[in-house]
């Protein structure tokens, strides 16, 4: 499977990659984008199977990215990652088509539980 990781922080993208590896999903191919706009280009070009996106980013946030995909009628398994994770954010994420919202700190156990149904 092809996984697109979107975060403006290169360290945060590395953390997500590390968590994927430690959760046993290291065999999948990963591509990266630095914000929502770059992600839209990557999705159009590479058609990833799973989108793991940060919420707070410059240019285009994660929730704006999901809404843009909805408007384009694109269906993509999407997960929002945030350090916050209020009830309102969960509701917004669900309404924008996210499978779920993962809150930081990320751990391999939580990653495994959450992504097993998607990545097998």
């Amino acid at each position: 499977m092809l996984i697109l990781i979107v975060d403006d922080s290169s360290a945060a993208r590395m953390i997500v990659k590390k968590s994927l590896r430690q959760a046993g999903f290291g065999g999948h191919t990963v591509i990266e984008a630095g914000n929502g706009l770059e992600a839209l280009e990557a999705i159009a070009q590479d058609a990833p199977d799973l989108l793991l996106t940060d919420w707070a980013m410059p240019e285009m946030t994660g929730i704006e990215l999901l809404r843009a995909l909805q408007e384009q009628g694109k269906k993509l398994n999407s997960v929002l990652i945030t350090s916050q994770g209020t009830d309102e954010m969960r509701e917004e994420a669900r309404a924008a088509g996210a499978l779920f919202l993962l809150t930081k700190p990320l751990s391999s156990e939580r990653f495994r539980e959450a992504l097993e149904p998607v990545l097998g």
Partner: protein
Amino acid sequence: MKNGGLSTEQWLTVALEALKDSALGSFAAEGVFVTPEDSALAAEHSGAYVPLMAGDESMQVGLLTSEAGCEALTRALLAMEPDEAAPGLEDVVDAVGEIVNIVAGVMQRQLAEEGLFVEIGLPIFVEGHVVHTERHERSAATIEIDATRAEVIMLRHNSGAA
């Protein structure tokens, strides 16, 4: 609990607990020890601050340490191998900012359980100390994350000091 019901020291306690949880959970630290006293780390130390807003309260939570400490925290967070080359400045800035961002998120969730809603801003990285005046209250403690000694700081703007 009403907004503003916590003292600066209580905010610091919440931050320290959040950092302990994050360090033990997210980057597999083996030991985290807190010394309540402000160690008044050297002014050349670096770190990150994240703004917190709760009602009419405005604060910054910060984590400051030496250059070597910043590198050690970055290595731990990114699970870098001991023989991997030193992380670049951009990675260090991102990683230390990410640690404080995670801490702020844990604080937000802990305080939400007690009915206090906290908004979180974006992290900034600083080299050297942030000057505080009589318009700020400052509370700090030393924390050791494995072999890394750092300072956790709460800077709180006094009411009406906007």
